Structure formats: C-alpha cells, structure tokens
C-alpha cells in the first residue's frame, strides 16, 4: 500500500520559495494547487533543507520560520537546525 506524507502551505510569497525548495530536493513529490493553498505529497518521505531555502532566498533562514506558512502536515516530524523531515518509516 502506498503511504503518502504531505505538507500544505498557504499560497503566498514565502511559500513559493518553500514549494520550489521542496520540489528541488524531493524529485518524487507531487504538487497540487488549490484555492489559497499549495499541497505537496510524496511517497514515504519529504525533506525541507535549510541550505536549499537559503540559496533560494539569498539570506539566512531559520527552519522554524516555516511554521508561519504551514497549514497542515501528515507523517512523523523530525526537525533540527538544518532540516524539516516528514516520514512514514
């Protein structure tokens, strides 16, 4: 059985970079656009890397900044200073 993790962002300016970073780092992910939101799902695992985000933004980025734009998640969370991971093990 397929086991999808997902993350949903508000569709705003910050999230455009987040979505780009997620899609760059997770080639197996699928992105869906719905009114006012962006939903990304992937088999088993999704990672958001601080490094990728900092490259996209051209500035320092704190992983916890993301919390302002996230609407929902599915999967076990693992967060530290360098990444945010959602996964089903």
């Amino acid at each position: 059985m397929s086991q999808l993790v997902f993350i949903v962002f508000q569709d705003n300016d910050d999230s455009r970079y987040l979505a780009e970073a997620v899609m760059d780092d997770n080639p197996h992910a699928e992105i869906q656009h719905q009114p006012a939101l962006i939903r990304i799902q992937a088999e088993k695992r999704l990672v958001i890397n601080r490094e990728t985000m900092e490259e996209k933004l051209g500035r320092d980025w704190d992983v916890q900044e993301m919390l302002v734009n996230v609407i929902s998640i599915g999967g076990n969370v693992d967060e530290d200073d360098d990444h945010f991971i959602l996964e089903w093990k």
Partner: protein
Amino acid sequence: MAVQNKKLNLKDKYQYLTRDMGWEPTYQKKKDIFPDEDFEGIKITDWSQWEDPFRLTMDSYWKYQAEKEKKLYAIFDAFAQNNGHQNISDARYVNALKLFLSGVSPLEHAAFQGYAKTGRQFSGTGARVACQMQAIDELRHSQTQQHAMSHYNKHFNGLHDAAHMHDRVWFLSVPKSFFDDARTAGPFEFLTAISFSFEYVLTNLLFVPFMSGAAYNGDMATVTFGFSAQSDEARHMTLGLEVIKFILEQHEDNVPIVQRWIDKWFWRGFRLLSLVSMMMDYMLPNKVMSWSEAWEVYYEQNGGALFKDLERYGIRPPKYQDVANDAKHHLSHQLWTTFYQYSQATSFHTWIPEKEEMDWMSEKYPDTFDKYYRPRYEHLAKEAAAGRRFYNNTLPQLCQVCQVPTLFTEMGAPTKLSHRQLKYEGERYHFCSEACCEIFEHEPEKYIQAWLPVHQIYQGNCEGADVETVVQKYYHINIGEDNFEYLGSPDHKRWLSIKGIKPADEDKNAA
C-alpha cells in the same frame, strides 16, 4: 569574549527550557501533585522518553505567534475597510459562518480550557509545555475567529449571540457535548480524543478544504483566520501523533485502552464532522471539492498511511471506519435535508440547491444523488412553489451519545434508518448507530447524564413548551430574521440590494 554570542542549537535550547521544570518532589507526594495521572490505567514508566519534534522554545513561540497575529489583523482591517462582505460569492455563504461561529469557535475556547487543565495533570515536563502552548494557541483561535466574524455581524443576521446559542440550541449540543465529553475524561483520554483523533485524524477536513472553499467564495477574512489558526495546527497534530506513540511505547497494557479510545473518538469526531459535510457541499456556493473527495484524501488516504504506521504498536484502524467510509456518499445530503425541515429552529437559513448545484452533486455523487436525494429536493421545491415550504413540526429523536437526530441510514442500505436502543436501569435509550450504542454501553453512568435538547424542551426546562417560545426566548434566535428559508429572508433582500438587483425593504446597515 569570543564565545559571547555562541548560539545554542534547537535541541539544546529545548533542553534548557524544560529541564528545570521537572523535579522530584520532597515534601509532597507525587501522587498528590498529579492526582489524575494514573486512574485511567495508563502506565508511564519513563517520562524522559517524551519527544517534542518541534522543540519550540518560548522566545521563538512568541516571535512567530506575534508575526502571525500582525499579518492576520492587517488583513482583517483591509477586509473591513474595503467592505469585504460585499465581495463574497453569494450571501448564502454567510450561513456557513453562522454555523462556524456558534458551533466551532466555542470549541476553540473549550480546547483552551481543556489544554490548560490537562497541561497541569502530567508529571512529564515536555507534555506539560506542549499542552500549555497549545492552550494559548486555542485561546487565540477563539478570539481571532470572533474578531473576523464580527464584521459579518454588522451586515447579516444570526451572528449576534453565538456563545449563548452554543450552550442551548439543539444542533449545537452536538459540538458542545463532544468537547464536554472529552474534557470530562482523564488527561490521556483527552489527548487521544482531541490531539490525536480530532486534530491529527479529522480536522484537516474542516480547516483545509473548507477554508480553501472560503477563499474560493471571496471570503478573505475567514480563509485568513482559518489558515492562521491552522498554522498552529501542524504543532498540535504533531503533539497528537507523539502522544499516541509515547503512550503505546511506554507499556503494552496501554494498547487496548488506547485502541478503545481511538474507536470511540474517531466515531465521535466523524459524527461531529457530519455538520462540516453539509457546510462543504451545500453552504459553499462556489464549490472546490466535495465532502466525499475530501474524505477520500484526508481520511482514507492520509488516515490509511497513519494507521499503517501504527500497526507496529498493535493498533488497528478505528472499528467503525467502514461505516464512515460508506457514509461519504450520503452524509451531506442526509444532513441538509434534515436541517432544511427544521429551519424554523436554526440561527441560519436553508434552501433548495440551485439547478447547477444539483448537477454538480449528480456528478460528484453518481451512485447516490440522483437516486436518493434529487427526488427529495424536487418534491420539496414543488411544495415550496405551491406555498407550502415544508417545516417539520415534530421534534427529532436525538442520539443519546452524539446528540445528532437519528437521521442516518444503515451501511449499504440507504433507505433503512439506522437506530439502536437499549434499556439501562429501567430507562430506554436511543442511538443513531451501533457505534454510539457501544460507546454508551461502555460508560453508561456518563451518558445517562447527557443534556439532550429535545428532552429538555419536553420536560419544560427551556422557557416554554412550544417551538416558537423556545427559539425566541431560550435560544435568542430572532424569529423572521435569523431562521426559516433563505429565499425572501432579510439577509437575501439585503444581499440583492448590495448587488443592486432590487431595493431592500429596510436598510439595516448603511455600509
């Protein structure tokens, strides 16, 4: 001085936040300090195993919450200054907000109270901190929702006394009793009920597709508070999943207790969300996603992945999930046809869906809508056209547990009413389903105390014996303004005048 600004990493910071909040008491017994920690039978052997994956510290918490609030209130101001209510798709939409403000926002406040209380019950500091942050979040949700909707209260009926209505009105006893049930349970059941079953498993259905629908219907204020609240929810959902895993890992004796809670609270939440099914399919004039599609994504697919993950602890999916999955084809239609006939006693309006909406439902519900529900609307439309808009004057039989009228049908038999009854200490009790009956059987002493609005009316506890007196005096629903059919209502007339279609006979609020 070189190390003066050395930054702690997240894990260390979190460690410093929590480490001094837990100590071994010396002059009081631990049992006296945390008296509710073990009566449910849950065995905790080592609280230090508690992991909070977000590791949010107070300084970050205040910083990000302040940022969320600033954004949110900037949008509320813009919405009000630009008369945002004039840009929604249709005034019928506002009825979803009336239900939200009286049915959901008070639950946010109940959640605040519930987490504040529960956060005091645990001897583990990680759990205490998570609950206390969540208590503050939930208070924020309750407040921001009331602020957002206060703008609508200036222009539409039915939003004037939501908290009062929540405590008294018949259909609002469904959400109220749900949360009261959870809050009167022990701390571990409360977290299993609200953090896990409700927030992790089910609330996506309300806050994601419904809020996306609000955006699609031009309601900038609601989508903004919805998503702002929901941005806290990622944390709450994570607490829900962590708490379940933590309890299950602590002791194998915890597994059957948690399983029974999951069975119970999945079902209680599913029954509560039947109200949301109708908000999505019927109360959003511009439609994004049907209830059955949302159920497939957010329960069948995501819930499926979750319960597969929990298999290793010996947890199986909720006992009655098959009934819930089958009901996705019927739920919203059964709810709306019921509310349609009891609109004399609601704080919002109902209506017969327009032709395009019915065609959309035929498309989304190919096996059920044309066969079972379209004919009902055609009949009701004919009655209304002949000047006999149907209102049901017989008060409904409520389920003793979920308090929803016994309006549902049996799985696989959509014309057969689902009803169970049993006798307990000489009294007969009625239920909407096997699942609710089973919940009662396990805790009869709790559920015989249920405050059932219909029984209360018949017992004369609601300021009168006739519906009109109860509605007006006891519920504070203004007759002829807040209730009855949408077509021809003051809200409808006001909307036509906003849109320049026909002058309203009274201009309640020169905007």
